């Protein structure tokens, strides 16, 4: 395949050193600013959704709130637990934050621009397997979480870290599978070429829409955010893996969390929403919208839109239970994903062999749709049947009597100890006396 033929994506092999430094700085500043922005944005939007106004003290309309919080966090007292495994304890936040920054190195911000007389793409670097870099980095981030839980020398962070890790690994599977569909459809793993492939039509408008939906659900689990924020459910738990962290180290975890959010949003933009390409009608109105520096606007707007959806989810949905969450990940998202990849692969192979659209439709799409429809109807019928059965059972139970515990009508109540002693005493009496006392007791009962 072409992947093996060249190790370098065209345009990225020969960048001068100063240009790389500028781009690295640019990506770093972008991520830090996006983190500060998304924290304020999230608090503002969630506030509005709850009839509040959110932060409004620091800076104009409270926009500098997260900056102030970050400064405060950095200057706070640092408490290191006595039982902490010091080297690992220090390493874990770095292991969490550095890959988060690293993952953004392959994100395409825009097309080729002229920078100090040098033509270069608006992207730090790219590889033939660019998207896998993002994956590798998010997997490395899990190490940071597991190790921080372990190194804290405390039970709660350990459990929280394990839960976080279990969650991220589970949802990474669904996320990876949904991206596999994009690889098949576009024929490349390089981010810049995937964006180039969406020049005319975003992948979200193709059969990849299902992959996109699954990806959107998976990234919420992957970034540990509501409604999947079980490991750090602030209203129920202490705080998960970062319980024992304070000051700047805690800030690193915080930063990593929000950068991961920006990263998965940017990846969604790149893979499904046309990357830096302008949204559909703008292209006709403004011919230059996809050249020069302007595409950065579209890219950032799309990322912010996805972050808004993140916040919207948080503002709307209650937290899921752990078993429901794992059920959704393993038994719903992954099977659907696998089936959909099969379908996409089949369609792709048939079309590459020169089949016309109608042929593909008749041989693959219509039968699949029919099977799915029958499956859905059968499932609904079965659910209805179960429901009717359960309702009937309940009705039968209701006919038996009240649902709350009532003693049966033929209940034999054991005698109280004093009564039992008295009847034992009566048993030792002569027969006639006993009969008299028994009949007297019977009278009393009636």
């Amino acid at each position, binding site marked *: 395949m072409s992947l093996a033929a060249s190790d370098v994506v065209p345009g990225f092999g020969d960048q001068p050193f100063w240009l790389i430094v500028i781009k690295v700085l640019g990506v770093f500043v972008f991520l830090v600013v996006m983190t500060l922005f998304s924290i304020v944005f999230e608090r503002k*939007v969630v*506030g*509005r*959704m*709850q*009839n*509040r*106004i959110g932060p409004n003290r620091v800076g104009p309309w409270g926009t500098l709130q997260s900056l102030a919080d970050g400064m405060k966090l950095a200057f706070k007292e640092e408490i290191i637990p006595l039982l902490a495994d010091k080297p690992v304890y220090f390493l874990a936040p770095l292991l969490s934050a550095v890959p988060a920054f690293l993952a953004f190195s392959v994100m395409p911000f825009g097309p080729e621009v002229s920078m100090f007389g040098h033509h270069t793409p608006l992207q730090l670097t790219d590889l033939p397997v660019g998207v896998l870099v993002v994956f590798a980095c998010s997997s490395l981030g899990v190490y940071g979480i597991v190790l921080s839980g372990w190194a804290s020398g405390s039970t709660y962070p350990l459990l929280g870290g394990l839960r976080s890790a279990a969650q991220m690994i589970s949802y990474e599977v669904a996320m990876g599978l949904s991206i596999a569909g994009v690889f098949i459809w576009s024929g490349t793993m390089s981010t810049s070429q995937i964006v180039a492939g969406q020049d005319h039509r975003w992948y979200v408008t193709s059969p990849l829409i299902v992959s996109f939906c699954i990806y959107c659900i998976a990234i919420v689990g992957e970034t540990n955010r509501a409604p999947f924020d079980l490991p750090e459910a602030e209203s129920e738990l202490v705080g998960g893996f970062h319980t024992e962290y304070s000051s700047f180290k805690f800030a690193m975890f915080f930063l990593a969390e929000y950068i991961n959010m920006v990263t998965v949003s940017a990846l969604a933009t790149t893979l499904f929403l046309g990357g830096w390409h302008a949204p559909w009608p703008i292209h006709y109105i403004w011919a230059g919208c996809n050249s020069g520096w302007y595409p950065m606007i579209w890219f950032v707007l799309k990322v912010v839109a996805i972050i808004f959806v993140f916040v*919207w989810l948080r*503002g*709307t*949905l209650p937290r899921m239970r752990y078993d429901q969450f794992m059920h959704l990940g393993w038994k719903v998202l992954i099977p659907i994903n696998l089936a959909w990849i099969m379908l996409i692969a089949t369609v792709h192979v048939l079309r590459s062999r020169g089949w016309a659209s109608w042929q593909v439709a008749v041989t693959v799409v219509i039968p699949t749709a029919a099977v799915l429809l029958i499956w859905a109807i059968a499932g609904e019928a079965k659910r209805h049947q179960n*429901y009717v059965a*359960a*309702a009937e059972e*309940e009705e039968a139970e209701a006919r038996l009597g009240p649902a709350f515990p009532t003693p049966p009508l033929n209940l034999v109540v054991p005698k109280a100890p004093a009564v039992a002693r008295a009847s034992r005493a009566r048993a030792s009496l002569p027969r006639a006396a006993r009969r008299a006392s028994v009949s007297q007791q019977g009278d009393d009962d009636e």
Partner: protein
Amino acid sequence: MSRPSRPGSNEPAPTPVGFAKGFGLTFTTMFKKVFTEQYPFDIYPTAPRYHGRHVLNRHPDGLEKCVGCELCAWACPADAIYVEGGDNTDTERYSPGERYGAVYQINYLRCIFCGLCIEACPTRSLTMSNEYELALDNRQELIYTKEQLMAPLLPGMEAPPHPMRLGDSEKDYYTVDSQAPLQKGEPQSSANEAGRPITGRAIEVGRHHG
């Protein structure tokens, strides 16, 4: 279809319409009026019968209504009120009748603003104002004394001790005529004036601190 998600439960099964409704609700709420009040900068009037800090009222001639009976202290579930009664004499009279409240303290660290003391008071001496700014930085000053709680003197009132001006006997203080200004809705004290927010700054009389 509106069948319950589980038989026997009242919650409806999840449907796409319900899903859209839920997300629509949070989305539209973003554009609705916010409830936030910019409190220290904008002060809004409380409800007219808001339970704020207490006031010890006066008769129209300025004599105190408190007779030192301690019923408020006995009614208090939080044990926030301390009263010591004293005897009026002909030369030094603070209230009509035999007794007056010589020492009167309300501990606002304990008070739960339930209003049972108000219900217990037989002379309507103790009432509540709408003032709620009762935060201070030390415990001692949150025990309000009689001077702080007494209603300020209005025009026509005379600071006790002085003889009874409304009649020869204390009964004259509890007739319809002597209470007439109150019945007509005239303010008993500035602290009870309806519809006006009372803040800590509004009542300076009798506060020997801040």
